[in-house]
């Protein structure tokens, strides 16, 4: 099925909706931060430290799981603590993506499916079950589900670019989110660890680096 291309009016409408969503999200994040009144003081620094460590573990773990929203934790931490926390979020995101990739690449696919089923993650288990009988390239096609044939062909040729784009595509939770995409990349067996690592290190850098160097506040 070929996706329909929107006309100029439709495109403008989509851009307007996207801008409105971004503005609303920014306003919401500021409102939440103001409501929390999160100030680090001598008397609460230890609690803040514990909260950051807990949030970090949850972030790495949840982000690595398919179909589980984990990125929001990182966004929330960036919103709450601003640029100083950006390096930690960046490192944690790389760790989480590589964890998902490693699980996909090295855990036997049957064991992975059983593990996800045991964790009651039915959609993730179904995704793995769907991928199990496929070839490596066909598994990659799963990542590019819904794309035109030309995009599929390009995706297979420039698979690391496709991987970077898939990880950064808004709404990628439909195909498993960052964790699901990386797990599928590992399962496909066509992504080498070194190149995947470099791809991930570059792909997840824009938001934390923008926060850090441009002083952007979420």
């Amino acid at each position, binding site marked *: 099925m070929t996706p329909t291309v929107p006309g100029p009016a439709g495109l403008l409408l989509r851009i307007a909706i996207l801008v409105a969503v971004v503005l609303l999200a920014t306003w919401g994040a500021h409102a939440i931060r103001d409501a929390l009144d999160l100030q680090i*003081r001598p008397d609460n620094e230890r609690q803040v430290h514990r909260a950051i460590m807990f949030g970090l573990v949850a972030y790495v773990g949840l982000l690595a799981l398919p179909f589980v929203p984990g990125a929001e934790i990182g966004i929330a931490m960036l919103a709450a603590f601003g640029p100083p926390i950006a390096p930690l979020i960046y490192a944690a995101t790389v760790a989480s993506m590589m964890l998902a*990739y490693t699980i996909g690449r090295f855990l036997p696919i049957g064991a992975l499916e059983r593990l996800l089923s045991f964790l009651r993650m039915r959609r993730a288990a179904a995704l793995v079950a769907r991928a199990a009988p496929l070839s490596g390239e066909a598994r990659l096609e799963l990542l590019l589900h819904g794309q035109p044939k030309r995009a599929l062909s390009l995706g297979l040729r420039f698979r690391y670019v496709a991987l970077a784009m898939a990880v950064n595509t808004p709404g990628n939770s439909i195909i498993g989110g960052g964790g699901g995409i990386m797990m599928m990349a590992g399962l496909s067996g066509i992504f080498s660890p070194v190149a995947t690592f470099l791809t991930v290190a570059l792909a997840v850098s824009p938001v934390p680096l923008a926060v850090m160097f441009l002083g952007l506040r979420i």
Partner: protein
Amino acid sequence: MAQLFQIAAIALATAGTGATTMAVMNEDIPDLAVPEGDWSAGGELDGRSFEIIGTDLGSGAVLEDEIIFRDGTFQSVDCQEYCDFGWSAYETKTVGDVIHFTARTICPDAPHTVVWYGTVDGDALDVDVTWTTRRWYWTNQIEITATGGPALMEHSGVSG
């Protein structure tokens, strides 16, 4: 075996990237710069204690504290409550009638360093403080400026 080696290599590369990111991107924040001078081991303020009211310059929060000088050592009651800093040596220099003092206190079980620099002119005390926390993932500093006067009664809950 080869798979274990690859997993270990991925873990190592990830940890190395994390450590490098922290080392390169985390900027240290220097402690309070204490003016140079003819500092010597403190003693002039021994036996005195001050109630101070300060402001956290970052958040605007008002902080109340009591600082005590005893036997060449210094203690902040609040710091003691937060992190068991204990008693720390202080240094002084006298310029005219004004006694300048400074102390660097270190929390034994958390990465907090607190640097104090103040003046005592008669009964009036002015002090600047930085509370710097150097965690492995960031450095956070709280700047405080405070003024105070003699404490009516020395805090009884502080032990040396």
